[in-house]
């Protein structure tokens, strides 16, 4: 949701470790990142503060588990986006979130999934409202390297008109 970019980002976790020199701080154990309606849960988050005070967060999940996120979307009273992946990166400045390896994103209208994407690399640029999907977590598409699957549900009568 556009309004989230004006909100301030908070991160909670069981432990917190800050390395003054490199201004890198690491959160671990039930990490929850909140920014307006965006809410991300993960096992570990490594936050690096850039010179212009913007934070770059890299989140990872417990082995075998997944990071999960949920955010409200513009354009409707009850539109949401949610998803999981094994690893994620979020850049406060570019407002660019990347979900890597076995990522899945679902767009919901209320509780009904209208569209869904699964793949190795799914990213969302909320400032320009653009999402990208690539078949390898490097971010560059590898020909023959597997494919991203998108499922679009048929539009119900309500949506159609």
């Amino acid at each position, binding site marked *: 949701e556009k309004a989230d970019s004006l909100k301030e980002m908070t991160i909670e976790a069981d432990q917190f470790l800050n390395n003054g020199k490199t201004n890198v701080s690491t959160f671990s154990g039930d990490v929850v990142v909140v920014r307006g309606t965006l809410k991300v849960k993960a096992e570990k988050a490594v936050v690096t503060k850039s010179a212009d005070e913007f934070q770059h967060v890299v989140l990872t999940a417990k082995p075998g588990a997944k990071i999960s996120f949920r955010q409200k979307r513009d354009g409707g009273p009850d539109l949401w986006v949610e998803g999981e992946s094994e690893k994620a990166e979020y850049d406060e400045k570019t407002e660019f979130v990347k979900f890597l390896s076995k990522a899945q994103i679902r767009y919901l209208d209320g509780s009904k999934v209208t569209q869904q994407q699964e793949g190795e690399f799914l990213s969302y640029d909320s400032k320009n409202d653009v999402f*990208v999907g690539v078949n390898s977590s490097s971010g560059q598409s590898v020909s023959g390297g597997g494919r991203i699957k998108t499922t679009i549900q048929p539009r119900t009568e309500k949506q159609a008109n």
Partner: protein
Amino acid sequence: QAQTTASRTFEEDLVLRQKSNQTKADDKNAPTTVQSERLWGRPERFIHFENDVEVVKGATTMNADKATYRFLEDEVDAEGKVSLQRNGDCYKGDSARIQLDSSSGNVINPVYKLLRNNAQGKAEKIDFIDEERSVIHQGTYSSCDGLDPDWYLRAETLDLDTGLDKGIASKSVLYFLGTPILATPSLTFPLSGARHSGFLPPVFGASSKGGAEFALPYYFNIAPNRDLTLYPKVISRRGLQLGAEGRYLGETYRGETSLEGLNNDRVTNTNRYALTSVHQQQLLPELALNWNLNYASDDNYPSDFSNSITKTSQRLLLRDINFTYTGSFWNLNLRASNYQVLQDYAAPIDRPYDRLPQLQFHAEQHDVKGFDWSADAMLTRFWHPTQVRGDRLVLNPQVSFPMVEPGYFVVPKVSLHATTYQLSNIVPGQDPNFHRVVPTFSVDSGLVFERQSSLLGKEVTQTLEPRLFYVRTPYREQSNFPNFDSGVADFNFAQIFSENRFTGQDRIGDANQITAALVSRYIEMDGEERLKLALGQRFYFNTQRVTLDNVNSPSRSDLLLAASGKVSPTLSADAALQLNQSTHQSVQASYGIRWQPEVKKILNLSYRLQRDTLKQLDISGQWPIANRWYAVGRSNYSLMDKRVVDGLVGFEYKADCWSLRFLAQRFAVNSTNNNSGFSIQLELNGLARLGIGNNPIEALKRNISGYQPISER
């Protein structure tokens, strides 16, 4: 005659339509899944997919290099080596668009192949209207494989409707081996043989009587159970003939009526027309109406206007209307019937009696305290322009006491045949009234023996069925009785066990005779009768005094032999011989052999003899003579007249997706000359049959028993 690709009966067509409706998968609310190596887009607006994109929705699958999905229009556009699969049909083109919810859309520069009748072709564009209908623009259509098919139809637009099973080509040109052979404003053809309104392929023809002919039939598929075929035909020497044939099938009725008319025939400057109409209807559950009406405007109509043998050789056209009321164990039939005689003055035919009307009553009951009884009554008014006329009443009660067991049967029967005549239009002095009462006593008895044995290595049950049939009918003077409907019956195994050697009711033959017969059948394990041998002879204890038109009374006894069945898996034979004991001459004989090693490879040979009337040798066959070439032929040679009475020779060429038939036919029309016809037929599988002359397949099926068109699997 209109040539439809496969003139199906209504029933087959209805079943086909119902089947096609069930298989339509309901794709409307199936999800769409898209796979690609890369994608990007804006939520709720569009998604671009790239690299190895595959879109699947219900029965439709699309592969392409790139595709874009637009949410608002709910459409997917694809470019780059697009291949689209839809209900089994596949299309390959440069780009394509699919509307997801209505599954309409189009493909640009497609090459397509339809699953249904593996037709294929290319086009500038194909529009999908909905799940079943598509329109091919500036495209070609052919059922031949490969890039340059032997034949193809190029059309401006080609509407294919797999739901209604029909294709309509507008402004189409048909190319065969590269040369255009037919251009039509609109041509309808069935995608799988069902029937639809539209022009049928034109029919060219030529006959010695009418000169060149051209007909362009149009077919109205009015309703699933009603259709009408119109065939205007230009006959060069005679003029324009209009023909119409209507068929209808209802819950309680069915029928077919065809009418042909040519006013002011330039050869005879008279009006020439013909009608045939057949109708059956169940007016009430017990009351049925049937009519069978045939009429021709003049004697030479059949030989002038049709080159099909069945019509030409019929000189007697039946006109019959009857009502039948069916009770629980009886029925009552009221009919009016007479024949139109198409006279041939070279060998004149005498006019049969009219029956205007005839009332028939029949009742029978079985196992009434062990007895079977039946009663027949018939009141008929016979009319004839010149000969004696009369009303005739016949009463014929019968009672029998059948003792039937699986191994034997004995059936004594007593019957009475009472007849009274009231004649008119008689020669002065001739008695107008006649009566006759004739009792008949008969005993039919037989045994059935069985044993297991083997025939050609196969285990069979062989039966041995001796049978004795004694008939005693006293003599009644009948020589001056009128003869309206009696004749001497053929002497065969059906007649040998009936009491009266004459058919009809006007002559009751005196009889003191015993018929002995021995039948042996070889029955396979599945109950099929593989081979049947039969031997029968009748012994007359006194000479028969009732004769008909003073045919010399049959000799002391005749021998009857018959054998029919499969001698080997590919060879079947049947033979029947009637041997006159006193003259030791065969009265009637027919021997036939059929050798059919495989389908479309058959030879028939038969010899038929009817003492003093017919002696014919009949050879017919269908045989592959070279790669893809088949020869078909028949020669029915009359040994008495030293002349081929009914001959036919033809060739068939079978390519993968079309077949060509040449046929020359010659049959006797009357005592002096023959009618010869020539026809060529090009059958384009899945499109139509184009022909010159009469449909050869009908003539081949009639002339060569066991013939199968090479285009059929």
